[in-house]
């Protein structure tokens, strides 16, 4: 993604921050963690050391990401769950892809909006 000016960079940072916050909330809610979402950091490893999640939790996260962001995580792409940032990368990459598909399928972008 090419960011051309300060406003675009700020907008991107705001969107990214918002997405990570939403992912942390989803994580706590979906896995019934007794942790405040604000205590999680975006780079904290989720599996192994760190939050110590396991494969059953990764299914729950796949469900949470699908329900909230309509993004499907494919089999084998376990690294998408390695941290909140990794999930954000995956959601951003695939959300824009799905939006592109919608446009080509007859959607339109209102340039005046």
């Amino acid at each position, binding site marked *: 993604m090419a960011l051309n000016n300060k406003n675009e960079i700020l907008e991107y940072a705001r969107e990214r921050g918002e997405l990570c916050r939403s992912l942390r909330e989803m994580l706590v809610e979906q896995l019934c963690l007794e942790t405040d979402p604000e205590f999680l950091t975006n780079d904290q490893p989720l599996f192994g050391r760190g939050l110590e999640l396991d*494969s*059953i939790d*990764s*299914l729950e996260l*796949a*469900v949470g990401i699908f329900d909230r962001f309509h993004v499907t*995580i494919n*089999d*084998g792409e*376990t690294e998408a769950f390695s941290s909140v940032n990794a999930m954000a990368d995956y959601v951003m990459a695939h959300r824009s892809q799905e939006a592109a598909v919608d446009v080509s399928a007859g959607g339109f972008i209102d340039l005046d909006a």
Partner: protein
Amino acid sequence: MKMESAVIARLLPHRYPFLLLDRVIELEPGKRAVGIKNVTINEPYFQGHFPGEPIVPGVLLVESLAQLTAIMYGTADFPADTNWENPDFTGVDFEDIASKVGYLAEIRNIKFRGLVRPGDQLRLQAVCKNSFNNLSLIMVSASVDNKCVVDGTITVSRKI
């Protein structure tokens, strides 16, 4: 569509006294299934659960739903052109399918909403909500006379 117990027994590794599914009446392989379990006073567990007050143990209701789930995902391996109204099952590797039935990995938000007694016919339903790798999250429910007796979600694994 109707799948009888003899076919079910070829698709599941479970045997007496733990084959807890009598018939499958609706099936979308890999997506959803509806099955029947008839409860009779001859079930072995009524000896102790409870003397004088036979009630199906809740965990066995969950097991029935898990077995229906195994049929739902096992049949996803059937040939794509299988005619489910009148199947002949040629080219189906039953042994392979039965050997891939996995384990219950999680039981979540299960609510038992009514007692199930001898004479009741359970209508079991399993709907796949999501899958990732060898795990699937399944929404399950069962009813007797159109009244829900159990619902919730389970996670099942599949051997690869």
